[in-house]
């Protein structure tokens, strides 16, 4: 469903809603996966991102997202210089991810204090984005919701426990998706929430001994 506020917006630094605003949002989600400004970032650009990215400031916008700047932040223009000052070491590569991949696709690998994460995402136009893969798990993250991602041992009752914790913190779940690479292997959960999960909820999830890793991805788009 199209929202009137998607049409009159977003407020953004130009020149392209797909190559600049969408790229910045993908960077913001990669930053959230790292848990803060990463110390290093590898950005592999595919298709139109690789071909016309420089002229659209796609490189600046991606790095700006890693630094935590939102699409309307004028510091996007100086993001590459600011990254050097903030100790973010970044590297761009042009690549072909898959022939069928969306033309505006990037794989971002980030590292912070020994923790690393990799995501694959596309900018779909008008600033809308879709993350299709996190650490090799197939996902669908739009950034339109406050999202919790977590990796847990594949065990019975895990979903009930997790949704119970969220309910205790008065957080309503919009969507929940569970994937795993093989039976008995780790489960990857993507939980889109109507409310922003508070830190206490995050701490309780992290404290479960069968949860290996969890991150909160704040909403980066949508009305």
């Amino acid at each position, binding site marked *: *469903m*199209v*929202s*009137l*506020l*998607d*049409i*009159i*917006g*977003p*407020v*953004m*630094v*130009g*020149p*392209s*809603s*797909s190559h*600049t*605003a969408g790229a910045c949002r993908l960077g913001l989600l990669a930053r959230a996966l790292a848990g803060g400004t990463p110390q290093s970032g590898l950005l592999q650009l595919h298709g*139109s991102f690789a*071909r*016309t990215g*420089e*002229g*659209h*400031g796609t*490189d*600046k916008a991606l790095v700006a997202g890693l630094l935590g700047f939102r699409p*309307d932040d*004028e510091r*996007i*223009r100086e993001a*590459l210089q600011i990254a050097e000052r903030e100790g973010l070491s970044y590297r761009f590569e042009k690549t072909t991810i898959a022939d069928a991949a969306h*033309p505006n696709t990037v794989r971002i690998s980030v590292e912070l204090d020994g923790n690393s994460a990799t995501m694959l995402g596309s900018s779909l*136009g*008008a*600033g809308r984005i879709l993350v299709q893969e996190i650490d090799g798990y197939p996902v669908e993250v739009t950034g339109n919701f406050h999202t919790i991602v977590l990796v847990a041992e594949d065990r019975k009752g895990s979903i009930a426990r997790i949704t119970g914790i969220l309910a205790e913190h008065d957080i309503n779940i919009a969507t929940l998706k569970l994937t795993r690479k093989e039976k008995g292997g780790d489960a990857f959960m993507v939980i889109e929430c109507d409310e922003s999960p508070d830190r206490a909820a995050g701490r309780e999830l992290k404290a479960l001994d069968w949860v290996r890793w969890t991150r909160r991805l704040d909403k980066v788009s949508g*009305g």
Partner: protein
Amino acid sequence: MYKALADAIRDAESQGTSLAEVALAAEARDNGRTPAEIRAVLMRALVVMRSAIDQGTTGDLRSASGLVGGDAAKLRSSTAGPLAETPFRDVLIRALAVQEVNAAMGVIVAAPTAGGAGVLPAILTGLAKARGVSDEKVVDGLATAGLIGAVVAERASLSGAEGGCQAETGAAAGMAAGAATEMLGGTPSQVGHAVALTMQGTLGLVCDPLGGLVELPCVFRNATGSAIALAGIEMALAGITFAIPVDEVIDVMGEIGREMDVRYRETAGGGLAATPTGRKLAKERLYQIKRSDA
């Protein structure tokens, strides 16, 4: 949100209200916000639009490639043309200004997209200034424009990569024409004719930016798109009607977009981008961008 302008026009007429009001009511229903909250968001968008116009008409802006910039200021300081001292010319200056700010990585409102971001603010703020229209009415105009854009997104496309420039500056011109027609006192039915009269004039327009950059001809397309919107507004307010219903005009825009060769859909493979000079300029300027970033 509505999927046909005809439905929104019928609701507005039967309730004796404006398209802006039915659009705000529909958005409130969809997203659980009050019309006042939606108006507040649109008011913030209007502030950004005005600030981009100021920046673009007074500042010395160049795009990353240096291909565009400074032309809004040039038009503003000239009195050579036949439109001097008219709101028409003021609208053209504003459209160039916003798009130059966009190309220089300034802050704009993508409405509906960044590439077509100049038309709507140019028409609404330019005509509001000429006629002394209140900000509240301009915000209503943004709501009406949003409704029109949502219908275009639903039935056709708002992406140059999918539908060519007719889906970006063409859609922007349709949105601006409908919104301004209502802002200047037109009826809901006249709004529909303004959109149809405008978008019939941009059907088939290709998206052919040099080097794939949102610069040339995008900056000038926002000015010429605004001119077509002004023609649509002038005709619709005089009571001129367009025989093909507006939703059918929008549908055929989508159909033409789907039939359009990929060379004419933002890939820089055809049109102005593929002319000998277009290719040469793109090559030189892309090289320059790489050097200046290094």
